[in-house]
């Protein structure tokens, strides 16, 4: 039994291979990019606009609002990374309704890659916000004794993020597959519907966690003085 689309090899030459994960990801990328391009090709600056534009605006402003609620002061700066994270995971799960499709997020390689991206993005955003010194000093907070623990927490949360997404996705797909063999008709459909829900929840959680990590890295050590009223 195949646990992830990694095992679906289309082409391989030595180390380099083209497996299901990569192919499905490309398909997703194509759909997302082409859809976006198609809709944003004729954007209306007017008060009247198309339904698709409305949908995209709702999605984008919704993500932006969520990021802002986490505590990031300039959401547009993080929108590209966090928004794409959410859209990618959500789209990957939504497409499970298509027969023959396997979500790339049910591959630990993909979730690990996403977790790695977060792992790299957090210090990058931190440095962009506070400078190299400022960011590195945050590892010595509150005292230098905490340095190893801070590093361990950084690594472990990346691992936890990867495994969390992978576990959920893979288990959902696995459950459907197993149930299909036991009760072939009604139950798998219900589980697929449930899988869609959990997929969306996972996309949300993954994005929110990444946002929280970034917020922790970029948050100033000293709280800003409250504005004088």
């Amino acid at each position, binding site marked *: 039994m195949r*646990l*992830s689309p*990694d095992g679906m090899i289309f082409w391989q030459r030595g*180390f*380099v*291979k083209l*497996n299901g*994960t*990569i192919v499905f*990801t*490309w398909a997703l*990328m194509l759909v*997302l*990019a082409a859809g*976006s*391009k198609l809709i*944003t090709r004729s*954007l*209306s*600056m*007017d*008060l009247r*606009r198309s339904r698709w*534009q409305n949908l*995209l*605006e709702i999605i*984008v*402003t919704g993500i932006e609002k969520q990021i802002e609620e986490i505590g990031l002061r300039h959401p*547009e700066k993080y*929108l*590209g*990374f966090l*928004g*794409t*994270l959410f*859209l*990618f995971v959500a789209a990957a799960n939504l497409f499970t309704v298509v027969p023959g499709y396997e979500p*790339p997020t049910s*591959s*630990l*390689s*993909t979730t*690990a*890659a*996403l977790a*790695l*991206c977060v792992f790299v993005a957090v210090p990058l955003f931190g440095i962009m916000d506070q400078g190299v010194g400022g960011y590195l000093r945050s590892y010595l907070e509150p005292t230098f004794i905490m340095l190893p623990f801070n590093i361990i927490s950084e690594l472990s949360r990346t691992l936890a993020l990867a495994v969390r997404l992978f576990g959920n996705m893979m288990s959902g797909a696995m459950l459907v597959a197993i149930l299909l063999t036991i009760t072939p008709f009604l139950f798998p459909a219900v589980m697929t519907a449930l899988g869609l829900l959990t997929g969306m929840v996972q996309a949300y959680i993954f994005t929110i966690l990444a946002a929280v990590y970034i917020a922790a890295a970029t948050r100033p050590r000293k709280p800003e003085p409250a504005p004088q009223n």
Partner: protein
Amino acid sequence: MLIDWFTVGAQALNFVILVWLMKRYLYKPILNAIDARERRIAAELADADAKKAEAQKDRDEFRHKNEEFDKQSAALLSKATDEAKAEGRRLLEEARKAADALSAKRRETLRNDARNLNQAITRRAQQEVLAITRKALMDLSTTSLEERFSNVFTRRLREMNGRPKETLANALKTASETEPAVLRSAFDMPSEQRATIQNALNETFAADIRVRFETAPDLIGGIELTANGQKVAWSIADYLLSLEKGVGELLNKQ
């Protein structure tokens, strides 16, 4: 093996590419569109505010102008009314004056007419009266009246004194030498009367006065003595003449 490191790398790269694609084709255009719309709405709101302010200003200005216009119109109307009243009064005054003048002229004309009529009547009355008198006296005049005339004439001759007497005396004296004095009467005078008058003349002027007696019916009644341009008369014609002269002078004075 759950994790394939090549796939991890490829997926990470894919994700980075997807981030770039999404930024390029989704977030940027959408955010730009939203920003543009917000700017546009803000601009339209500002524009609407400006227009509203302008409209308010225009309205205020219009109201102000309206008030001004009303005031001006009221002032003009009041001025026009005053002027019209003044003009009316003036015209009325003029008309009254003209009417007064006309009335005065008419009164004057009437007065003139009345006067003319009066004069005409007076003149006519005078002429009539004189004619009647003349006629009546002519009818009344007789020889005995003539006698009375000669008596009165004689008495008046005798009563003469002063300068008229001297002047007449001189005239009579020069007349007697060249041409006799003429004594005219309305009727043919009897010889006694002639003698009486001759005596009276001689006695009055203490000289022998030569007199030629003539009859002149136009005297109506009375006697007239003419000598060398000097004349003594006592006749009704003379009286009537002097009366006519007096009345004429009186009428001319009026």
